[in-house]
């Protein structure tokens, strides 16, 4: 039963985590807008979501191998095998190169930053809706 609840929320959970990581990457691009030879980075969101979904849904509850149980009454831990970036960050294509080797285009970054923040909040709204739906299904009227 509980793993079904977990599976129901896992899509938006993954989405939020990926959005958080993407936000971090874009923040780093904005932070390094004036750093010579810095190459702007971003992630392939579709591929990251796909691999995160495959990692979680294929085996939602897998006993942790690296956790030691000192008592028989301890619960088996959950091994999360997708804690980091699944496919690693990629480099953004250069639109207008600059002499110092920096490839950050502030217009692109600002755009993507706002877009990513809105999508993060959209995921938050949807997961809130799911929780509300689940709560009303659980409650007796």
């Amino acid at each position: 039963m509980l793993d079904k609840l977990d599976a129901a929320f896992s899509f938006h959970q993954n989405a939020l985590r990926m959005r958080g990581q993407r936000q971090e990457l874009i923040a780093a691009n904005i932070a390094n807008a004036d750093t010579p030879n810095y190459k702007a980075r971003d992630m392939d969101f579709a591929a990251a979501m796909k691999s995160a979904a495959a990692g979680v849904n294929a085996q939602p509850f897998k006993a942790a191998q690296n956790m030691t149980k000192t008592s028989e009454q301890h619960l088996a831990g959950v091994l999360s095998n997708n804690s980091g970036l699944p496919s690693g960050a990629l480099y953004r294509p250069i639109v207008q190169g600059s002499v110092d080797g920096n490839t950050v285009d502030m217009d692109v970054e600002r755009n993507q930053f706002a877009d990513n923040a809105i999508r993060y909040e959209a995921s938050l709204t949807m997961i809130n809706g799911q929780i509300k739906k689940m709560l009303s299904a659980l409650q007796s009227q």
Partner: protein
Amino acid sequence: MSLFNVFNISGSAMSAQAQRLNAVASNLANADSATSANGTPYKSKQVVFSAIASGSADASSVKVLKVIEDNSPGRVLYDPKHPMANEKGYVTMPNVNVTEEMVNMISASRAYQNNVETMNAAKSMLLKTLNIGQS
């Protein structure tokens, strides 16, 4: 938690940009300093930024690698009454290019503002995340 790392990244960029602004202020303030502690005209100072790895992912924060002195020749001014004038009456003034410094200043302050904005966005996202499942 990656969103918390945004604070570190933006914070490092803000501190680096503040240091750049500091260098600009020093250059502009000393634009007419014909002499300094070592007897030579003031030399324009520039900061060099460098990306350094931060935390877990591929996101990197900013650090001021070094502050370099511009070694280009200074402005030469004809002023025979000046105490630093040479035998022909010329004074060597600092090599500060005021126009360049003003542009540098605007660029630094805009970059600073961008990072403040980034930090605020991350903050509001985190605050909203804390409210998951509440009412």
